[in-house]
C-alpha cells in the first residue's frame, strides 16, 4: 500500500486503485499517519518550494525586450 504513497497523493493512479487505497486508509491508522504527513509535506512544498524572491517584473521585461531588440537589429 505504501508503495503507492506519492502516486496516490498525486492522484495519478487508476480510479479503482485510488478508491481502494482511500478505503484502506480509513481503517489503518499506521498507513494514515504516513499519508497525512506526506500530504502536509506536499502542501508545504507547494507553498514554499519556490524561491520566494520578489522580482521587479517591469525591470526584467525592459531588460529582456532590449536584448531581443538588439538581436532583431542584427546585434549580438
Amino acid at each position, binding site marked *: *500500500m*505504501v*508503495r*503507492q*504513497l*506519492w*502516486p496516490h497523493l*498525486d492522484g*495519478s493512479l487508476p480510479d479503482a486503485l485510488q478508491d481502494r487505497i482511500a478505503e484502506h486508509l480509513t481503517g489503518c491508522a*499506521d*498507513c494514515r*499517519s*504516513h499519508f497525512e*504527513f*506526506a500530504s*502536509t*509535506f*506536499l502542501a*508545504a*512544498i*507547494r*507553498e*514554499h*518550494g*519556490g*524561491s*520566494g*524572491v520578489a*522580482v521587479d*517584473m517591469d525591470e*526584467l*521585461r525592459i*531588460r*529582456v*525586450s532590449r*536584448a*531581443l*531588440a538588439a*538581436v*532583431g*537589429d*542584427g546585434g549580438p
Partner: protein
Amino acid sequence: MDDLMIPPPGSAVPLDAPQVVDEPLLSSGAVGDALVSSFERLTMPHLPAISRFARSLTREAAAADDLVQETYLRALRGWHTFRDGSDARRWLFAICHHAFLRDVQREGLYVQPPDDDPELESLETVAAHWRAQQSGVADAAERLDLGQAINRAVGTLSPHYRAAVVLVDVEGQTYEEAAEVLGIPVGTVRSRLFRGRRMLQDLLFEYARDAGFDTTRTPAPPEARK
C-alpha cells in the same frame, strides 16, 4: 547527458538555439523587428512564469535574471521551430531548463542521476517517516517553520531533482507535462520527483534534529510493514 538535448514542445527540431543564430530573419532590420514583435506578443505574457521558474532553479536573483534573458534569446533564435498552436509557455519552460542545465554543465556541476524505482522511493519515504516517528523527530518536524526549512532544502537539491520537484509540486504540472519540459520519459520524472521528495523529507528531519528536537529513543530497524 542525453536530456541536455531537449526537443521543444510542439517541434520536431531539437532545441539547440546557437545552431540557428544565423537565421536570415534575425539579421535584417525591418523584418527582424517584425519578427521580434510577433515573438514578444506570444512569449512575453509568460515572462512572470519563466522568471519564477528560473528563480526556483537557480535560487539566486541575478543568475535567474540572466537565465530568463538567455531563455528568451534562445527562444527567439529558435522561433522558426515553434509550431502555431503549440504551448508557448511549456516551450519556454523547456528552453529555460535546457539553458539552466547548460550552465550547470559549464560549471562542472552536472551529474547524471541514477534511474531509481519510484515505488521503492515511496517505500523508503514511509520507512524514513516511521523511523522519525519512533525517534520523535516527525512530531518535531511538524513544529518547525516548514516554509523556511523547505525553501532551504529545495535549494540544496541537485539540479535534476530540483527541476522535477519545482515543475510538479510548485508549478503544478502533471508528470506528462514535466516530462515534456525536461525532455525525459514520464517514468524518469516520477523517479526523480519521488527521490527529490524523499531527500527533502530527509533534510526536513535533519533540520528538526539540528534544532534540538530529537529524542534519545532508538528506533527499531526499518522494515517495510505493509
